């Protein structure tokens, strides 16, 4: 049972997060900050596009450098 649950967790992790957990964590944090800013009078829509703009090149660059 325990092994089955661990296998399921590993499968879900691989399916959704893949091999760059840092980028996934960065996006989750960006969503959390968006929710926090949305409770104020300031606009918050710009945060997720900015996170994509920063995290995708960063993730690609790290992988490319590692494999060079």
């Amino acid at each position: 049972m325990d092994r089955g649950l661990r296998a399921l967790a590993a499968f879900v992790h691989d399916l959704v997060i893949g091999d760059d957990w840092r980028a996934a964590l960065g996006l989750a944090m960006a969503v959390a900050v968006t929710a926090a800013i949305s409770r104020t009078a300031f606009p918050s829509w710009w945060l997720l596009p900015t996170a994509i703009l920063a995290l995708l090149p960063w993730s690609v660059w790290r992988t490319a450098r590692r494999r060079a």
Partner: protein
Amino acid sequence: MGAGALFIAVFLACTVEAVEATTIVLAAGLARGWRSAGYGAVAAAAILTVVVAGLGPALTAIPTNVLRLVIGTILLVFGLQWLRKAVLRAGGVTALHDEETIFRTKLAVAQRAAAQRRGTVPDWYGFTLAFQGVFLEGTEVAFIVLTFGSNQHAIPLASAAAGAAILLVGAAGFAVRAPLARVPENALKFLVGVMLTGFGAFWAAEGAGARWPGSDAALLVLLPGIAVLGLLLIAGLLRQDGARDGESAAASPTQPAS
């Protein structure tokens, strides 16, 4: 998001997965016999259909904002992973997904395995190979159908798009009895990665309480913007690769200095 956009997004995403599953089922069928491979593929598809039918209504009962926040975030993370893989493949950092090579490898391994009958399944190896291929690739199909469909309260439409993609790809694969190597899989993966990331960001932000300027029209800027970012990254990787090749050619001249 209109019904047409939902259909196209799910159809394209499921086409990519269906091509990969078809390659494995074809290898299983050609090497071990079509009956066992067929049983395996149908069994996996049936289980996934039950999962979608069971989870679908439950998901649509969740309040829209909570659903958009949770599903949007998962879709955003999942989509960025697809996009990243497509960029790395197109930029020459990782190998392109080669259906011909995968097919040949699976076929060679399947031809060597011993036959074993279990119940009504004439060849257990062929059944398992086809089952695993359809189940693993199909999980992503089910995931896309549930996330896109539940967000738009249109799971039947999302299921129809997935079904159309699977039928089309499956029929084409069965007709030619060879892997569908001509399908531009990486280009499709890039396009789907852009859509998953864009829609994920849009829904996650809405679920978190953000208001997009222009409402749904913001997607018309968000999606092309993400595509341009991906294309710029591919161009950068290719230029870097070219520069590295030039440097190594200059460092090791073919004619030794006299």
